[in-house]
């Protein structure tokens, strides 16, 4: 019997005890059980992150000695330090001189924020149009959009790369953004959200002399703010963590984004896991902050949008 089994047994026993106390109305038992399950789930989810945290602060020579943190007795400058971060901030060589960590953060930030803002704008435009306008070929277009989401992206990589080279978009952060400026997924999300807007509002706007674009911008968009926030979060996450496309399209050492450059620390013949993990831990902060700030809007955005048919 080890501590883990003992703990689980104790929790189970407590649950049964609470149940036995009031079998007809086991409110306390359920509450306790609920808390236990949620806590266990959280522990299971957080455990790998704890490993990450431990690995980030362990010195390179002892990274492989201890699974998590060294026992307190072994803590010293030699085993726990900020070496990984200092190596991370040392930068990487390039023909333009040394490139430092902040440059990669800047690249990633620019890519993610500009992409997300553009995607927000164009997707909402198209989504609104699909929700509130009738036009020839609308059904066909929506079917095609849905179909396009089912094509594996890897398939289109070679021709897109060829085109990107022709248009001189390779090795450029802006060129990388261009193919992905509008996503069918985003369009559908905004379509759902806009369909919930009452038509009377739009007609009232027209009567008031607003232009179509004005209606869109001043009347409709403020009403789907939750959806905008939700979409921003999902988009930002996707763009911030995207690896495959930047990996292929970006060549110059000073244009790489965070996921790409961090992976370069794990090469065929040499791995510096400590730096890789330290960088990943830092790279997790912006999305975490964003999610934390946007949690409520995110949830209500989902409620108002994708939820309804």
């Amino acid at each position, binding site marked *: 019997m080890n*501590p*883990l*089994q003992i703990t689980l047994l104790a929790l189970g026993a407590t649950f049964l005890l609470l149940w036995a106390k009031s079998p007809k109305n086991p409110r306390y038992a359920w509450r306790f059980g*609920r808390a236990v*399950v*949620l806590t266990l*789930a*959280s522990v*299971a*989810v*957080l455990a*790998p992150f704890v*490993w990450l945290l431990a690995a980030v602060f362990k010195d390179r020579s002892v990274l492989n000695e201890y*699974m998590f943190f060294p026992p307190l007795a072994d803590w010293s400058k030699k085993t726990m330090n900020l070496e990984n971060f200092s190596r991370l901030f040392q930068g990487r060589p390039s023909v333009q001189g040394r490139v430092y960590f902040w440059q990669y953060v800047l690249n990633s930030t620019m890519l993610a924020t500009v992409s997300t803002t553009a995607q927000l704008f*164009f997707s909402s*435009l*198209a989504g609104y*149009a*699909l929700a509130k*306008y*009738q*036009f020839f070929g609308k059904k066909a277009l929506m079917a095609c959009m849905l*179909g*396009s*989401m*089912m*094509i*594996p992206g*890897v*398939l*289109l990589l*070679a*021709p*897109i790369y060829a*085109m990107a080279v022709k248009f001189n978009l390779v090795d450029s952060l802006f060129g990388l953004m*261009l*193919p992905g*400026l509008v996503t069918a997924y985003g*369009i559908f999300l905004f379509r759902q959200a806009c369909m919930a807007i009452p*038509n009377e509002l739009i*007609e009232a706007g027209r009567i008031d002399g607003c232009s*179509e674009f004005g209606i869109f911008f001043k009347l409709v968009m403020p009403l789907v703010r939750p959806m905008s926030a939700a979409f921003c979060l999902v988009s930002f*996450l996707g763009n911030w*963590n995207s*690896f*495959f496309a930047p990996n292929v399209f970006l060549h110059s050492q000073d244009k790489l984004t965070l*996921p790409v450059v961090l*992976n370069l620390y*794990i090469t065929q013949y040499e791995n510096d896991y400590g730096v890789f993990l330290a960088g*990943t831990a830092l*790279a*997790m902060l912006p999305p*975490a902050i964003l*999610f934390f700030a946007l*949690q409520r809007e995110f*949830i209500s955005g*989902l*409620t108002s949008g*994708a*939820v309804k048919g």
Partner: protein
Amino acid sequence: MAQTKLQYKSWVPFAFLGPYLLLTSVFFLYPFINALVLTFYQTNGPKSRVFVGLGNFKYLLSDSTFHQALTNTTLFAIASVCLQLPLSMGLAILLNQGNSRLKGFFRLVLFSPNLVGQIFVGILFSVLFTPRYGLINRTVQGLVNWGLEERWLSNPVLVMPAIILTSLWLWVGFNMVYFLAALQSVDKSLEEAARIDGANAWQVFWHVTLPSMRHVVVFVVIMSIIGSYQLFELPMALLSSTNGYGPDNSGLTVITYLNEVAFRSGDLGLGSAVGWVVALIIFTVSLIQIRLTKVVED
């Protein structure tokens, strides 16, 4: 919603859709047609192509590796729908009945795996699955006194469970958030009415709550299936010590197979054919899904 007279100029919708249409025709349609055409060819190098008609498809029919990739991926899709989604739903229900302060905290924690990219998750878990010393082996050993030596990533039988486990960690929280949002919009009065009528908690859930969340559930299921069939970065990173495919091709998915055939062996035509088969499967499954829900509705 019928309108007798258009109250806006007819070019307006196209102006709104303009950017999308433009970008799509350049960056999607052209590559798409390119891929479509390539399916009937066999490519070797920049300039050489040989027309093979349906030859690629014929080859895939008898290709045991492709069949294995299909089996693996389908298994994963089924596990996603039948394991992941109930877990997400369960957690969403549990989370829904609480006070809001803790709710926000748990929501953040359970969603947090999605803050990092798939590649990182794959690498992280490849370390956690190591035999004897890995976190997962040690935990399982502690719980049921078995499995310390199990090689998750070198045992063909355990590779797919390992991938499924990793995907659970990653996506249960994500779908949970969707379900949570849907639960919050369910009409409470309906539930109350059912409870007053004498239904127990499970019946209330199955007959009242779930049907009113129908649209979200369908949406999440379809997205899950589409996502499962496009699984690529996760298995490649997880199984990177065996070329990304696992021992005995047990971790081969259709997209990693596509990547192998098109970009490692060099036949883009065959890769295109694989892609088309995948798209067809996804399309069919989604169609069936939608039809089924319509049937249930009526």
